[in-house]
């Protein structure tokens, strides 16, 4: 067989090159090592911790996590918060981005002010809102000065206002992230598309629905994934405002780890968040995939 094949000239002329590691591998090696040490290893450790006791594999910690009276309320609260907060945030962020796009006076200042919460630590934000919603906080002071009965916003037996307070604080704190992503996405869309739609008779809502939002889809997808994953991790604001009165999954993780000194159950809870985040990302990626543009990229 080999006789029929023409000899490869390169192999005749040059001696066999010594096997080398491709430069690409060398280039990404530092980040691979870095990621493996700082992300991969802890993840593996965490997963193992949730399932391993001194006697080997066990579901004991998972069982303990599920049977804890705070677990299901925490899951329910987290999901409820996500379900209400994410649509609200996107409505706000898109509205604000569209307002900014219409080049109002001082648009840079507006954008800067709206982006401030991004720079704030979430615990600080929680404390700020605590000073507002507190029984003797700013909000109640205003109400009292207007002659309206004050409301114990953060009372443990008032789950609706507890939820509302956490919701308002979280929306305030984290909408700016969505805003920044949506604004940068809008800036990436040439104005011509919107102008063409205007000339061809499309009104504001028609343009939003048929032109702007579809073209914004990649940015919205990124923002959705980021925001939802981060919403699963909502913690400090709720902790500052409500303590354990409005339990969330990450708050429970924290309580098991520091309060109850049980890292194994805490690891199991963290695993719940990891799995939920992965599932939701896969869901978004599939749901928002542009069927039309497949194969062209």
């Amino acid at each position, binding site marked *: 067989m080999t006789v029929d094949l023409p000899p490869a000239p390169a192999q005749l002329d040059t001696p066999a090159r010594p096997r080398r590691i491709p430069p690409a591998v060398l280039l990404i090696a530092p980040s691979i090592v870095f990621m493996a040490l700082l992300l991969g290893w802890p993840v593996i450790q965490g997963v193992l911790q949730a399932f391993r006791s001194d006697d080997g594999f066990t579901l004991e910690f998972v069982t303990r996590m599920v049977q804890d009276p705070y677990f299901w309320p925490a899951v329910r609260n987290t999901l409820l918060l996500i379900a209400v907060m994410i649509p609200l945030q996107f409505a706000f962020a898109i509205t604000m981005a569209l307002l900014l796009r219409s080049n109002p006076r001082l648009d840079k200042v507006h954008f800067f002010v709206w982006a401030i919460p991004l720079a704030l630590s979430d615990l600080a934000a929680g404390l700020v809102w605590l000073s507002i919603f507190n029984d003797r906080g700013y909000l109640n002071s205003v109400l009292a000065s207007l002659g309206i009965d004050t409301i114990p916003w953060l009372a443990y037996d008032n789950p609706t206002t507890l939820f509302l307070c956490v919701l308002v604080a979280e929306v305030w704190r984290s909408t700016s992230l969505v805003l920044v992503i949506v604004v940068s996405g809008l800036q990436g869309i*040439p104005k*011509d598309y919107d102008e*063409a739609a205007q000339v061809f*008779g499309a009104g504001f809502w028609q343009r939003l629905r048929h032109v702007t939002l*579809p073209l914004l889809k990649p940015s919205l997808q990124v923002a959705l994934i980021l925001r939802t994953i981060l919403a699963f991790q909502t913690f400090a604001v709720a902790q500052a405002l409500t303590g354990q009165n409005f339990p969330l999954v990450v708050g429970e993780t924290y309580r098991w780890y520091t309060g109850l000194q049980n890292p194994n159950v805490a690891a199991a809870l963290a695993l719940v968040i990891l799995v939920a985040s992965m599932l939701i990302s896969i869901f978004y990626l599939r749901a928002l995939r542009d069927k*039309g543009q497949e194969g*062209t990229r």
Partner: protein
Amino acid sequence: MADITISHLVKTYPGGTERATDDVSLDIKDGDFTVLLGPSGCGKTTLLRMLAGLELPDGGSVAVGGRDVTYLPPNKRNMSMVFQSYAVFPHRKVRYNIGFGLAMAKKPKEEIDRKVEWAADLLQLGPYLDRLPAQLSGGQRQRVAVARAIVMDADVLLMDEPLSNLDALLRLNFRSELKKIVKDLGTTTVYVTHDQSEALSLGDRVAVMRKGRIAQLGDPLDVYDAPADRFVGGFIGSPPMNFINAAVSGDGDVLLVGDQRLRAPSLLRSFSSADVVLGVRAENVAVDTQRSSGDVPGTVLVVEPMGSSILLTVEVEGQTIKVQAPPTFRTTPDSRIWLTFSPNSMRFYDSETAMALVAR
């Protein structure tokens, strides 16, 4: 279909000090194809965008078909437009793109389908209706943009340098196709371009713009033959018109170009002893290697064969001009040739104001 009346339009962009359009007035007859021609920054696109409603003027008015549309939003003006960047929606198929305007107007589906098919047929887009713009070539995307504009039954069709992103050959082919399509449609059309050959070949009328004003408005051949000022003559034509400094003799009979004496046309009688600028197109200068009466001597500097002609750069009395010689003409740099200016094709401009001279 409708006529357009633009009166005293003034626009200054925020932050700018110069007027983008400076008191522009223009009447466009129903069904006319008007080309706005000018170098970049002359205000032609601004004028078009104010027609479309994408920019609002600081002063003046725009009326279409007798209706004042100056401050109407774009979607209420019943216009359609072809954009320089095509602006074909990348996320939707060709079929949807062409029918976009009709769908926004909530036309019945059969009507949309029928018109889309018609336009696709006209622009040879039939096989591509179910493709996405990303799967089309630049020329095809351009066709989609034109198809989207012509299905609209708009009062006015606006085109903003629609051919400038196509390669030279495609541009030439599509230009004549576009002319036929628009002529058959009969829609009033305003077309913006910086390409003078496009303007001359497409327009019923050409408005040459400079610094926010219309420098000349007229039939394409008039604009070419008799530029209203030196700017228009220098902008239109390839090569641009030659301008030669000259003087009229005391009795007004003789035109002096350096030491050379030419017979002055009767127009110059009233400009005796004045400094003037002689404007003449390269193809209106006859060349010869032999001297005959009335000829002006020149020295060849550069010889550029163009195929259909030979472009010569010639020095005449210390001034450099371009001359178009027949392809059979043979000469070499540094040789002496003789030029004849045909009296009918000579234009004269005031040496100070650069405006065309008219008999007075």
